[in-house]
């Protein structure tokens, strides 16, 4: 294969803009979500979820260790899930996941909406959606 010269700028000349920061955020938030989901599943096992687990339960605990997710399961005691520590853990996962997900939708939309005006509208809607889902989700978790 023929070697071609790299056309990209060196890192020092590229500078940082918002899209670049969001690009790195997508990768780092993915790593954060792996860690939080692993932590949530381990926490669920410690808090008594070891018996009679099925796939839906594992997904519930993995993605959001909050008390409404426990009520439907065979775990008798939901008190350990009600502590501020686990609520804050769930809210942290929610915040990272909402930002990652809505940014992903913006990236998808950018492939089909190419006008400057359209992309601005997409960004305004995305900010509103982040606020909507983060605030309602945090409310659901905190008051559950």
């Amino acid at each position: 294969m023929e070697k071609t010269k790299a056309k990209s700028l060196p890192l020092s000349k590229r500078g940082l803009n918002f899209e670049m920061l969001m690009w790195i955020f997508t990768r780092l938030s993915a790593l954060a979500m792996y860690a939080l989901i692993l932590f949530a599943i381990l926490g669920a096992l410690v808090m008594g979820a070891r018996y009679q687990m099925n796939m839906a339960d594992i997904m519930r605990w993995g993605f959001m260790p909050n008390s409404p997710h426990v009520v439907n399961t065979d775990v008798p005691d939901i008190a350990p899930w009600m502590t501020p520590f686990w609520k804050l853990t769930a809210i942290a996962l929610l915040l990272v996941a909402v930002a990652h997900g809505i940014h992903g939708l913006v990236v998808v939309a950018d492939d089909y909406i190419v006008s400057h005006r359209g992309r601005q509208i997409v960004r305004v809607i995305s900010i509103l959606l982040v606020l909507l889902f983060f605030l309602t989700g945090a409310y659901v978790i905190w008051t559950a």
Partner: protein
Amino acid sequence: MALKRQVGLKQGLRYKGGGPMLVWVLHRISGIGIALFVGLHILASLTSQLYGWEIAKSINILYESSVFQMVVFFCALFHAINGLRITILDLWPKLIEHQREAIWVEWAVFIPLFSLAVVVIVTTAGG
């Protein structure tokens, strides 16, 4: 910003992107699927918690069905494993030379894990 796409849907479907294009499409579809599911789930939980709406409760009960579990788990697991591949290749750019092998590794991890999950879902899910 004046991008023009001259490719229609039929031509797009005939494009032979192979393995990398397949995982790109699946990553996109599974990402949209997760966003729809999580968004609907948050709003349904809010309305059932605040107002006790029956429709919100029935939406949340829908998630118990085995088909729904399989779809959600496919989206979540595929997005997670493919995302890990992307993250590793992007954070260590020298590995991009081996991206086709990375996709084979990805399937070798995904297929056994998802098959196991399907067995667990079929044997334990209620409906």
